C-alpha cells in the first residue's frame, strides 16, 4: 500500500507505514528488507531505475514500484479483508451496522 501512489525507497516506506498507522507500526530495517525480498521474488514489486533529481537523491537508496500483478493482489487482499470485516460486523464482533 505504501507503493500505491508513488515509488518509494526503504526508509520512505518505513515512514509511510508509520504515518498511515499513526505511529503504531514502525517497521524495522530487517523486517522491511525481508518483506521487500519476498515481494520482489513474487513479482509484486520491482526495483525501478527512475530516480528523483540528484539534490533529493541518495545513491545508496533503491526505489521500488508496485507491479500490475502486485496491485491486483493488493486489491484482492483488500476485498478479502473487507468481506471479513463485514462478516465480523454481522456477527457482532465489530461495532457498527450489521
Amino acid at each position, binding site marked *: 500500500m505504501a507503493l500505491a501512489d508513488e515509488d518509494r*525507497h*526503504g*526508509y520512505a516506506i*518505513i515512514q509511510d507505514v508509520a504515518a498511515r498507522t499513526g505511529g503504531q507500526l514502525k517497521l*524495522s*530495517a*530487517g*523486517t522491511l*528488507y*525481508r518483506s*521487500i*525480498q*519476498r515481494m520482489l521474488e513474487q513479482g509484486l514489486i520491482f526495483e525501478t531505475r527512475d530516480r528523483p533529481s540528484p539534490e533529493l537523491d*541518495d545513491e*545508496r*537508496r*533503491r526505489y521500488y514500484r508496485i507491479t500490475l500483478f502486485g496491485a491486483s493482489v493488493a486489491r484482492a487482499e483488500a476485498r478479502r479483508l473487507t468481506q471479513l470485516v463485514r462478516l465480523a460486523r454481522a456477527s457482532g464482533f465489530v461495532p457498527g451496522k450489521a
Partner: protein
Amino acid sequence: MMRLYRALLHLYPAAFRDEYSEEMCAIFAQRRLEASRAPAALALWVDSFFDVLVNSARVHWDILAQDLQYTARVLGRAPGFALTAILVVALGVGANTAACTITDHVLIRPLPFAEPERLVKLWETQPGYTRTPASPANYRDWK
C-alpha cells in the same frame, strides 16, 4: 558505530547482505541522527541488535525452506531416481560407518586389558604337523 552495525549485518546470508546492507546502513544512520539523546541511542542499538538477530535467522530459514522445497519438487518429479539416490547414499553412509567402527576398534582403541604388549600366542608342534593351536588342557598343564 556504523562499523559495529555493519559487522552485525554479517549475520545475514551474503547474498542478502550484498543486496540490502547499504540501504540498511543508510536507514540506521538516519535513525541514529534522529536519536540524539543517549537513552534514545541506546534503545536504537537494542532494537537494531534484536532486529538483526531475529531477521537474519528468518532469512537463513527462508533460504533453507526454499532449498528443501526445490529438492522435494525435483525428487518428486523422478521418484525412481530419488529412491536410487537415497539407497546409494544410505549404503555409502552404512559402509563408511562400518569401516570407521572397525578401524576404531581394531587399530585405534587399546586392548581391554593391562600390558597388551606382553600378549603372545602359543602353538604346539606334533609329528606330522608343523604348528597347531595349543589345547586348553595342555596350556593348563604347562602353567
